[in-house]
């Protein structure tokens, strides 16, 4: 049974209440640092690493923005561990990416207190700036979004969030619960023993649990799942030929931003910047000869297909690829539709569990016999 | 060739027409038969072989001494007689003590036994000694057009090293070739090698099951063959396979099982032109359907 602590807040004081919690943890030595979305001095909210209790005042975990995936930050902080305890406040999609990165030995959770926040979606960076300009706050977002009103005048939460069926985080030590918490209330939930100890140390009293939460989450997931399935059907119809797919990707300039933004694209140095793809002039000429012309840069589709083969098994659907594209290519549905199939084939779900072995990560002679043709 | 005819009990007493057939055909095929004067029961397996070795072998010895005195081998039709005599002889031949004991018992009767006379089944004599070709050459009235099935006497097959004369006891050919020599078509069926079930105490102790066991065989014959007749070469098979059919008919309430059963010697006699009234007149299942077509 998990433990809940209820945080009631007055108007415009959500973050103040929350900062008390983080401050408590830092001061009482539950952790040595906090990685959480923080309000930046002028505008914007960014993940920041806080080691001084005084700076916790800026926390804003529910801000509907994620400029970079927190999973990548988690990797930077822990792949070569500091030895200090960090509380990380991350979105569910980031946490699911973290789970994959743990299996790939890119994240080490030994010294991490993982805190997952309820996520109702995020805006693109530029839109979030507008949102703030238009007076939007995390509180207003939580309230409106729970009523289904995420759209602002000329923008809305990103497509990935609209079809995300994981608004709450699993595999965490603690959760920040907003969905179904009621107005003026959020809950802190301690899920693991580690989480419980941290909650106790933070000085926040545990007690009442959120009554309407399960129902509200269920409802939201149902809406999102419907939207997802609809999107899949649409997108598959739009990309059912190679030409249609090529068209979707035609704007690509090989800037590799999507690759950089992708939390599970974990290579140190991408194969696409190695010698393998550094061709001689005569090679290009030969390719040009074949069709009479050659679009340059030439391997844009190949690049994306390679990324799909590499990443679709790990894809958590965060939508950072779409956000990253300077040419507005909507890559998210391409990854999600293919991930849907590849993960189902192995009865795998990226981010579901740390203990689940990644598909094809071990040698099993009796796997995929329909492909290998062996009797088993 | 001279052979001493061992008739046993059932044939001379109940089915003498079979004896008639043997006595008629053998001389035609060049076998001279001499009678076994003062012979006794073979003995039947259910008799002395089931009480003690002494009485069994003494009785066998009694009988064998007759053939030995005549200086020829026995020819036997009854499967049980054949097997009992052969097994008895085998025991004596392989156990000197037993042979000695038998002679000790025989001594006061003025008989001795050495084992010099062999015991041969009539089908063996016909198959190995005379041969289907010779028989075919002698046929006056052919069974052409008739379908038959054959019943191998278990006692002429197993255990093969004691009683056997076929090349393979597990895939015997003799009866089939003998019947084919008479012009008939011999049909095969699944339960061809299934025992008729007539010997021993099976029929007496559990008649229901014994009849049911035989029924499987007859159903297979009816289903799988066009048999106009059944050729047997053992008096027990002959009587049992007739009786079972009548019992089965009573059970099913119709004349479903009515395939005539002949001892092979009877068929042979008929084909050699002998009078059916003499060589094939005694039966429990009417033989008219066959006799009318020869």
């Amino acid at each position: 049974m998990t433990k809940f602590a209820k945080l009631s807040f007055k108007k415009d004081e959500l973050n103040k209440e929350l900062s008390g919690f983080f401050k408590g943890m830092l001061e009482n030595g539950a952790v040595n640092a906090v990685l959480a979305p923080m309000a930046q001095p002028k505008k914007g909210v960014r993940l920041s690493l806080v080691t001084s209790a005084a700076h916790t005042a800026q926390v804003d975990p529910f801000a509907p923005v994620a400029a970079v995936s927190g999973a990548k930050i988690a990797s930077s902080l822990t792949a070569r561990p500091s030895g200090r305890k960090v509380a990380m406040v991350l979105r569910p999609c980031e946490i699911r990416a973290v789970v994959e990165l743990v299996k790939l030995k890119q994240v080490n959770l030994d010294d991490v207190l993982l805190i997952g926040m309820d996520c109702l979606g995020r805006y693109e960076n530029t839109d979030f700036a507008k949102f703030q300009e238009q007076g939007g706050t995390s509180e207003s977002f939580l309230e409106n979004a729970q009523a289904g009103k995420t759209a602002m005048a000329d923008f809305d939460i990103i497509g990935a969030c609209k079809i995300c069926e994981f608004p709450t985080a699993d595999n965490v030590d603690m959760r920040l619960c907003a969905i179904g918490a009621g107005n003026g209330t959020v809950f802190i939930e301690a899920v693991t023993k580690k989480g419980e100890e941290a909650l106790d140390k933070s000085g926040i009293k545990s007690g009442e649990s959120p009554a309407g939460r399960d129902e509200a989450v269920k409802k939201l997931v149902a809406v999102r799942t419907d939207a997802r399935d609809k999107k899949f059907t649409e997108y598959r119809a739009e990309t059912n030929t190679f030409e249609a797919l090529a068209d979707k990707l035609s704007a690509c300039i090989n800037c590799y931003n999507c690759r950089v933004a992708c939390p599970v694209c974990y290579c140190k140095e991408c194969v696409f910047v190695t010698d393998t793809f550094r061709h001689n002039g005569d090679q290009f000429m030969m390719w040009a000869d074949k069709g009479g012309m050659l679009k340059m840069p030439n391997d844009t589709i190949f690049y994306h297909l390679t990324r799909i083969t590499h990443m679709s098994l790990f894809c958590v659907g965060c939508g950072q690829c779409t956000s990253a594209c300077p040419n507005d290519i909507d890559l998210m549905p391409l990854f999600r539709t293919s991930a849907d199939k590849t993960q189902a084939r192995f009865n795998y779900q990226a981010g579901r569990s740390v203990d689940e072995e990644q598909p094809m990560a071990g040698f099993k002679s009796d796997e995929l016999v329909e492909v290998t043709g062996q009797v088993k | 060739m001279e052979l001493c005819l061992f008739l046993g009990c059932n044939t001379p007493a109940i089915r003498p027409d079979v004896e008639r057939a043997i006595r008629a055909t053998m001389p035609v095929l060049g076998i001279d038969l001499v009678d076994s004067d003062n012979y006794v029961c073979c003995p039947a397996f259910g008799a002395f072989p089931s009480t003690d070795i002494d009485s069994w072998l003494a009785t066998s010895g009694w009988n064998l001494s007759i053939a030995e005195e005549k200086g020829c081998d026995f020819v036997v039709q009854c499967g049980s007689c054949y097997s009992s005599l052969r097994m008895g002889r085998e025991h004596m031949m392989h156990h000197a003590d037993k042979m000695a004991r038998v002679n000790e018992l025989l001594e006061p009767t003025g008989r001795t036994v050495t084992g010099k006379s062999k015991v041969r089944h009539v089908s063996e004599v016909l198959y190995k000694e005379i041969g289907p070709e010779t028989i075919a050459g002698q046929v006056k009235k052919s069974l052409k057009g008739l379908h038959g099935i054959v019943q191998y006497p278990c006692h002429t097959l197993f255990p093969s090293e004691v009683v056997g004369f076929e090349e393979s006891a597990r895939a015997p050919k003799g009866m089939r070739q003998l019947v084919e020599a008479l012009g008939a078509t011999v049909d095969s069926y699944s339960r061809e090698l299934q025992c008729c079930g007539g010997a021993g105490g099976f029929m007496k102790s559990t008649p229901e099951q014994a009849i049911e066991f035989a029924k499987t065989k007859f159903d297979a014959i009816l289903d799988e063959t066009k048999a106009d007749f059944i050729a047997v070469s053992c008096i027990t098979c002959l009587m049992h396979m007739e009786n079972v059919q009548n019992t089965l008919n009573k059970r099913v309430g119709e004349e479903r099982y009515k395939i005539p059963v002949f001892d092979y010697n009877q068929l042979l006699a008929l084909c050699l032109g002998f009078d059916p009234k003499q060589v094939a007149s005694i039966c429990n299942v009417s033989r008219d359907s066959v006799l009318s077509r020869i």
Partner: protein
Amino acid sequence: MDLQQGSIKDLWKAIYNTGDLHHCFNCSTCLSGCPASHGDPPLLVRNLARKVILGLEEELLNDDTPWACVSCSKCEEMCPMDVKPFEMILAIRQWQSANDETRVPPSIVEIYKRGYTQAVGVNTDLRDKLGLPELKTITNNPEQLQFFREMLMKTPVVSANDYMFGG
């Protein structure tokens, strides 16, 4: 069943004293094709071998199934261990006859009396009708019959049960 109480160690020697018996390893080949195994109770040759080996005297004395054997000897042919099951069945019958007078087959009395199980040489009508020669049967030869009876009287079961044979 208590093997201390209910079994006689050397009973097999009394019944079927051959080395063959002990080779039985209960493979059930003898059962598979046995006609009398269709009976009720079934003749289970394998079980008889086991009973003899264990020396289950009571059970064996009361067992009727050896008498249901049709003597086809198929078991003998197929037994991989050469136990000679048919001979064993005869041996069990012999032992039963020797130890239980009610087991003595009536047919031996018949044979003792007239030489045959059937009335050979008595009802000769059928034979006459077929024109068969008269058989020189022992039934009709008192001297030989007497020899025969005297010989049998020296054998164990007949002599032990001489009352059955009318003296």
